[in-house]
């Protein structure tokens, strides 16, 4: 029989989870999101030059502490919602539709579950990468490319202290990418684990979405609770260095917060998955009754 190589499990999961139309809609979504960002940046009256990184910042920085604009919220929330819809329930779908044939072939519930977790994290990574790339491409149609942050962004009123060392690398690799990816991975992993526990894809999708919506709502004008809310972790504009009213909300805090969620979900789920019934108990009772 032999051990099934883990790479084969991942390859199978990615092959079955991702369809061409999903990729297409992801590109379309981020193109629209990027256009929203362009709409915010380009018409802004200023003599200072702007570039593509302004759109990237506006697109992925999230709503601010006092910003209750629905447009800003939707601008930030849509990518998460779409990911939850596309991939947040792949594990539950696999379990309920093909669990009987799939999991025995893989050989163990834990290996199957680990495969689902790694697949989801990989999909999160690619999704974020695609999103950032598409937004940059769309904004390039309206604004110039540069290897530096624009004078407009550096001098904008959002900065309490202008970060002198702000570079493109910092913006992209230390702020936007880790926060977007980390939050997406954490909340979607939680969604997936809940979908397996409850055996209900819809409920887990609603829960994940509600988590993000409530994080936005409860965080508005409540600086003391902001850093404790899961969705806030990706809201760059609510972090302390951009919003001094919020204390102790550093980038390191967000990275640690998301890591704790991911770790907690993994630990609990690995304990529970070992004895999970592959066939639903409820279907047992209904069929046999």
């Amino acid at each position, binding site marked *: *029989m*032999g051990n*099934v190589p883990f790479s*084969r*499990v991942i*390859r*199978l999961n990615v*092959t*079955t989870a991702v*369809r061409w139309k999903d990729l297409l809609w992801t590109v379309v979504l981020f193109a629209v999101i990027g256009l929203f960002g362009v709409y915010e940046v380009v018409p802004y009256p200023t003599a200072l030059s702007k570039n593509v990184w302004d759109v990237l910042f506006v697109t992925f920085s999230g709503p601010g502490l006092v910003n209750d604009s629905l447009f800003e919220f939707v601008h930030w929330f849509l990518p998460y919602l779409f990911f939850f819809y596309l991939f947040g329930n792949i594990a539950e779908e696999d379990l*309920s*539709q*093909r*669990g*009987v*044939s*799939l*999991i*025995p*072939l*893989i*050989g*163990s*519930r834990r290996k199957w579950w680990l495969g689902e977790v790694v697949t989801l994290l990989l999909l999160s990574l690619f999704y974020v990468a695609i999103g950032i790339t598409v937004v940059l491409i769309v904004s390039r149609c309206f604004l110039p490319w540069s290897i530096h942050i624009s004078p407009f962004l550096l001098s904008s009123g959002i900065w309490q202290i202008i970060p002198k060392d702000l570079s493109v690398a910092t913006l992209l690799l230390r702020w936007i990418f880790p926060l977007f990816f980390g939050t997406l991975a954490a909340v979607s992993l939680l969604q997936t684990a809940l979908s397996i526990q409850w055996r209900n894809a819809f409920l887990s999708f609603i829960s994940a979405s509600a988590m993000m919506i409530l994080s936005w709502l409860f965080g508005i004008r409540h600086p003391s609770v902001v850093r404790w809310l899961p969705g806030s972790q990706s809201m760059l504009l609510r972090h302390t260095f951009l919003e001094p009213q919020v204390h102790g909300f550093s980038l390191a805090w967000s990275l640690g917060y998301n890591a704790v969620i991911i770790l907690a979900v993994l630990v609990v789920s690995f304990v529970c998955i070992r*004895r999970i*019934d*592959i*066939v639903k*108990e409820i*279907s*047992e*009772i209904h*069929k*046999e*009754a």
Partner: protein
Amino acid sequence: MEEVIAAVAVKPVVLLEGVSKIIRGRTILEDVSFEVPPAQIVGLSGLNGSGKSTLLKIIGGFITPTEGRVVVFGKEIGKEAEFPDKTGVLIEKPGFLTSMSGRKNLELLASIRNEIGEKEIREVITLVGLDPDDKRPVRAYSTGMIQRLGIAQALMEHPELLLLDEPTSNLDREGITIVHNVLRDLKKKGITILMTSPNMEELRHICDTVLWVENGHLGEEPPQI
């Protein structure tokens, strides 16, 4: 004497001892014990709700018994192995990716262990009366075709034990004949088959032994009408 020694020496493929299953306070199975000898077709019959499908699911490792032990090919399920080795399974409605063809579905599943190739997959699809070159997605299949594809999936990795839950449900007369012939051929090759059906007559027609499940117990077979 030689026959006695031979009988004692043959280990059962499946052994159940004192298996019970209680779900939310309701007893589905109670103290079920039996053996399945090698190269036999054993049938489990009973009314709807008798517990026969649950028994199959427990043997397959898909649900855990509340009490008792299940040993398949010498390994205790749940302790020494999560799932029985070398076992093909058809339980409940077979699930496939509906946007892909039947053959593509089997190819994806076969890619996990990589022990069989396109040739074997085509053969097993043909064996159950389907067309391996049918490019239609599974969502276009009839219920009977999906059932046949499920049987093909259970057979494709050359199992030594088959667990089949109502394999001929949703099949037309031709399909039933095909499945029965396939099962008889497999038995001749030494494969052990445990199948359920609410149709006692069907089981008597094809099985070497039929066990009657009633209210979660193995009971006496009802008299033939």
